[in-house]
């Protein structure tokens, strides 16, 4: 459904961030995007959702294709209209608006009021905790509730793909788990495809069914999550386990025997 080929992105005509990213998101797929900090994961998402040009960035090469049509340098509104919704890193929401207003803003593009109502009910039964704080100023919600609100807001817009940027950032493990279960549930029932950027690699790989690994603005490795989970390199560098699956002992911390060989 969503295809990316050799995507290249440059910020204010100097900083070359993406140097050729290619990936493929099937309908209703559950994809995770791994990579160390600064690998360009967030930039990829922004390039897809089109908010790049609000940040002086531009797509200089390759293309993003959604259901057969190019999205390069389209306005964010049109892309959102097409059904790609991004949730920014760090639980960004309209802090001075109430929960309900936030959700309604999420459904800004919905035509009728009835549609809005039904979507609202749906969101509320996915996240019952939001239902009983509809008129709170969203800035004062707890981290987990804010994350729910963010996902809920994205869900309001009848998305076909949701781009989640670090949903587990700074959340308690329990909260993370509940969020991820919610995500899975949504993916199953609403047939919404997810493109999930996550530092918590273990959790991410456990819920997704396919994964891409990025380094220095390139996709360097991909495969089904199960296979990635078993991949030695991924274990070494993202799951922090040695081949035996036990915690590493101090003795073999200097890992000259294994290096990221894709970075020659």
């Amino acid at each position, binding site marked *: 459904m969503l295809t990316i080929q050799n995507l290249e992105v440059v910020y204010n005509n100097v900083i070359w961030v993406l140097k050729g990213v290619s990936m493929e998101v099937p309908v209703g797929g559950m994809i995770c995007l791994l990579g160390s900090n600064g690998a360009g994961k967030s930039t990829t998402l922004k390039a897809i*959702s089109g*908010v790049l040009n*609000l*940040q002086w960035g531009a797509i200089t090469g390759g293309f993003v294709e959604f259901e057969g049509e190019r999205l390069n340098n389209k*306005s*964010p*509104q049109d892309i*959102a*209209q097409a059904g790609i*919704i*991004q949730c*920014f890193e760090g639980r*960004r*929401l*309209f*802090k*001075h*608006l109430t929960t309900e*207003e936030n959700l*309604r*803003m*999420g459904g*800004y*593009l919905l035509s009728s009021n009835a549609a809005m109502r039904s979507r609202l009910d749906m969101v509320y039964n996915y996240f019952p905790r939001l239902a009983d704080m509809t008129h709170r100023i969203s800035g004062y919600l707890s981290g987990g509730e804010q994350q729910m609100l963010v996902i809920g*807001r994205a869900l309001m*817009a009848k998305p076909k793909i949701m781009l989640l940027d670090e949903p587990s950032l700074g959340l308690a493990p329990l909260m993370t788990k509940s969020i991820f279960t919610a995500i899975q549930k949504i993916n199953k029932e609403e047939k919404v495809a997810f493109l999930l950027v996550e530092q918590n690699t273990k959790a991410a790989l456990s819920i997704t069914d396919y994964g891409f690994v990025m380094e220095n603005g390139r996709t360097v490795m991909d495969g089904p999550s199960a296979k990635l989970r078993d991949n030695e390199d991924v274990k070494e560098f993202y799951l922090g386990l040695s081949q035996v699956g036990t915690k590493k002992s101090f003795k073999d911390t200097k890992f000259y025997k294994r290096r990221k060989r894709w970075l020659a």
Partner: protein
Amino acid sequence: MTLIIQAILDGICIGAIYGLGAMGLVVIQKSSGVFNIAQGMFMMFGGFIAANLTLNLGMPMWLGTIVSMGAMAVIGMILNFLIMRPLAGEPPFTQLMATIGMLSIMYGLVMVIWGTDPYIYPSEIIPIADLKFLGLHLSPSYVNGFIIALIACLVLSEYYRRSKEGTAMRATSEDEELAASVGIKVTKVLKLTWSIGAACSTLAGVLFGMLGSVNYMLGEIGLMAIMPVLVFGGLESFLGALLAGFIVGVVNMIVGVYWEGSFPGITAVVPLIIMLLILIVKPYGLFGEERIERI
């Protein structure tokens, strides 16, 4: 005794108009984050257009007012398109200077087009008889000002609180990138804001001019009247602006009636003094939300 009651009544009537004028500025500030110092000039320009329509083209007052509001809405849109849009994302200081430029241009243009003579409106918007009771005297223009300004304020604040566009505007002022990503057309929102702001201050200008006359100084006077209102009410809240308008109006009137004779010119100064005190004690106004801006 009757004197002070009279002063308070007049003050409240004028205050409502101040509130409306301030609201025009708050609208723009709320969603585009621009402190439009040219708002007073918008008032004056609108007032002059209305005067032109009613005096020269012989429109009835209410029609003239509405038409001039429409015209100013368009002008506001154009100004936004020509001046503020290219400067989007610049630091607030730049945008402030741009509005100062606007102020200067409109000030000059008014003198070119309408000269410096005072213009007197032919009638009030709502025809009312003189109210005279127990020594008090409410002239129709004041009653007009009070009623219309009050209605406008309430309608506007309701529109912002309830309607979809209103919420969208608030959302945009909050976080443009996010707003864009949920599919709000930011440019459209800004266009809407500027036209609403301009129309609203036009109405204020017409009412203001109806008290006496419309002249080329109305812009400066309007700005000076609006500023304390803004500080009392804070740059973000509507009803705050209205209440603050009442306060300032009453203070103005009472000072004007009692002390203007012995301390000429003090009427213009007292609200400013109070404003400074408030600013030092409570930097974001009485009803304002804490929000850091850098210039």
